[in-house]
């Protein structure tokens, strides 16, 4: 297939450098609670942790296996439901003081979600794995709609419109504080995000992980060697569904509520969005994407009514201008640094980044002005801290100038980039 991404170059010697990213992330996660005790920060960080696992599990399908899925939230949502029902079972069993569930800590709930996600993929996945590409995309889209719609019809399992509630402060405590505040849940999230990310990274190094790359790159050739592409796809789908379910289990503990919407097209699209923005060809790409998209989704909402539009525009821009995503960009810079020609290529890249920045500001101004004209409640559009009157011409003129300058800089630096290629 022509759309295959090249694997990042791996060096043979596993020196300390290989562990550096892990150690740095661990250190950052340990230091964060020392820097802040704000509940808002932990609330957002907890969501980021869930989305990192969700996006990485999605990338097992698309980035590593070449299967474009529009129904990944099915596994996420079913994992969530399994975990929340298990949480209720723990609550009931501890209240009664007997039963198997009374001995299960809440910490283990993501494993329940994982089992549910994997099982769901095992049961429903086989007919879909015959083809990758467009057919797979369409089937998973239909499947997602089907599961989300049927969830509405069984209120005793899925809780109808309002979903299923639970309480996470139940069962035996294994270590750490009781899960009362977001800051307490933080340690739960740190534990699971590290376990899950390491497990998914390890998966890429297994023979099955390598085979999934092969089935993405050339399924026909794989058949000649004697492997069944369909089996490989099926196994990858199960693994990916299991990790999606694990993310769902984390979400169940975090929100203490699961609704049928968690099975639908919106969260499926979110997984795709995060993975593609971060970069499908690099293992850590979806991590970057999950952090960025979650931050945009949770922070922008305070500043603008059009936050979803901005997320969509970022996605569109990445697909059009940086098909390898942000992670691919990082790899490119690292490669240039490694080859020693960073100095030669930097002007072109900086020019491109400047062009993107100028055009983004122009677009933001345009969107905010349009919004102000259509629905504005006060006189001014608030653009990056500046009050702009949409009835005066200079705001619109600034938009045109910003867009034109940005485009000019883009053309100018494109010249540079081509020269240094």
């Amino acid at each position, binding site marked *: *297939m*022509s*759309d295959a991404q090249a694997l990042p170059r791996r060096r043979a010697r596993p020196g300390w450098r290989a562990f550096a990213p892990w150690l740095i992330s661990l250190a950052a996660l340990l230091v964060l609670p020392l820097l802040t005790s704000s509940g808002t920060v932990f609330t957002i960080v907890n969501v980021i942790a869930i989305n990192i696992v969700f996006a990485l599990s999605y990338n097992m399908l*698309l980035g590593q296996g*070449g299967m*474009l899925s529009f129904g990944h939230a099915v596994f996420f949502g079913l994992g969530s439901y399994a975990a929340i029902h298990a949480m209720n079972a723990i609550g009931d069993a501890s209240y009664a003081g007997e039963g198997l569930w009374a001995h299960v800590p809440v910490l283990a709930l993501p494993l329940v979600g994982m089992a549910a996600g994997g099982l769901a993929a095992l049961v429903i996945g086989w*007919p*879909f794995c*015959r*083809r*990758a*590409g*467009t*057919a797979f*995309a*369409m*089937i998973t*889209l*239909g*499947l997602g*709609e*089907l599961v989300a*719609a*049927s969830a509405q*019809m*069984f*209120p*005793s399992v899925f809780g109808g419109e309002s979903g299923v509630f639970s309480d996470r402060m139940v069962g035996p405590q294994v270590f750490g504080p009781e899960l009362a505040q977001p800051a307490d849940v933080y340690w739960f999230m740190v534990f699971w995000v590290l376990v899950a990310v390491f497990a998914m990274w390890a998966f890429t190094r297994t023979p099955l992980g390598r085979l999934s790359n092969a089935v993405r790159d050339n399924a026909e050739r794989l058949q000649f060697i004697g492997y069944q592409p369909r089996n490989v796809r099926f196994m990858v789908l199960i693994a990916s569904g299991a990790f999606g379910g694990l993310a769902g289990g984390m979400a169940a503990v975090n929100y203490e509520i699961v609704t049928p919407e968690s099975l639908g*097209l919106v969260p499926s*699209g979110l997984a*795709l*969005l995060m993975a*593609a923005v971060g970069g499908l060809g690099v293992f850590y790409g979806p991590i970057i994407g999950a952090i960025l998209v979650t931050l945009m989704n949770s922070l922008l909402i305070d500043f603008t*009514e*059009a936050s*979803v*539009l901005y997320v*969509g*525009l970022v*996605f*569109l821009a990445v*697909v*059009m201008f940086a*098909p390898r995503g942000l992670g691919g960009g990082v790899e490119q810079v690292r490669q240039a640094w490694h080859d020693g020609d960073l100095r030669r290529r930097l002007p072109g890249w900086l020019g491109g980044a400047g062009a993107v920045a100028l055009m983004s500001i122009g677009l933001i101004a345009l*969107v905010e002005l*349009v*919004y102000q004209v*259509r*629905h504005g409640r006060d006189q001014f559009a608030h653009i990056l801290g500046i009050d702009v009157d949409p009835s005066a011409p200079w705001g619109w003129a600034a938009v045109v100038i910003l867009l034109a300058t940005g485009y000019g800089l883009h053309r100018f630096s494109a010249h540079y980039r081509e020269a240094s290629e």
Partner: protein
Amino acid sequence: MLEVIVFSTLNGVLYGLLLFMLSSGLTLIFSMMGVLNFAHASFYMLGAYFAYSLGMHVGFWPALLLSPLLVAAIGAVVERYGLRRVHANGHVAELLFTFGLAYVIDELVRLVWGSVPVAYLAPESMQAPLFTLFGTDYSLFRGVAMLIAILMFAALWFLLKKTRVGMMIRAALTHGQMVGHLGHNVPRLFMGVFGFGCALAGLAGVIGGPLLNTEPGMAATLGPIVFVVVVVGGMGSLPGAFYASLLIGLLQTFFVAIDVSIGEMLNTVGFSVDPYGEVTGITLANIAPMTPFILLVLILIFRPRGLMGELEYE
């Protein structure tokens, strides 16, 4: 009972024709460019909203013509400056692009027209009943909508089968490179077909808006169903899309009309179950929104190439 059958058939056929207006464009674009346009239903939505806004200034009938033209222009621009650029990165990138486009168009519509439904209605003169059957009116607008749809298919058939452009399109479907070698501008042809497909979707929006509902969620509701139509009909097959549209239109409309639960049906054939239980109490009307997707899963398991598809697409 007869009343239900007659009206469900009429409504089902109309809904099916509407689906075919969308799926015909989608199928044309797919068979020519190999890309399933995820944003196709968003162009349908744009058609409805443009007709609503234009209709306030120039009236319904001019808007019926102008709105699809406007949608076609936007579609052509999207193809020329977006899709063509992404094409170099493969089919997955193209699908991602159209997915992102659908996302952005939905949000833009929310931004410009707000997130509540707008009052886009059929013109006053069209509200009158065309005929009255069993005491129920069938509005003139529904009749006209059906007529427009049928005229459009006739025009589409004529264009594809009887004109020079249609011949070029049909040739480019299978032998794009050869058409290029003969000196035709194939990229421009692609742009035209993409714009034309979008115009069909826009036209469907102009007549679908008053019939269904003009709100920012209308693309997300209809979009997946149109994909189901294309897959069930057989990807790339226009006749297949036609039959699948009518099938799904009739199926969904009849299911909505039949308010019988599974338990009641089982009881009539000799079982004895609780007709109000959680599973057995589900009525066919409850299942109606799911019928397209059930059909999709069944087709993909038992006949992966669809009703009339010639070969399986990768």
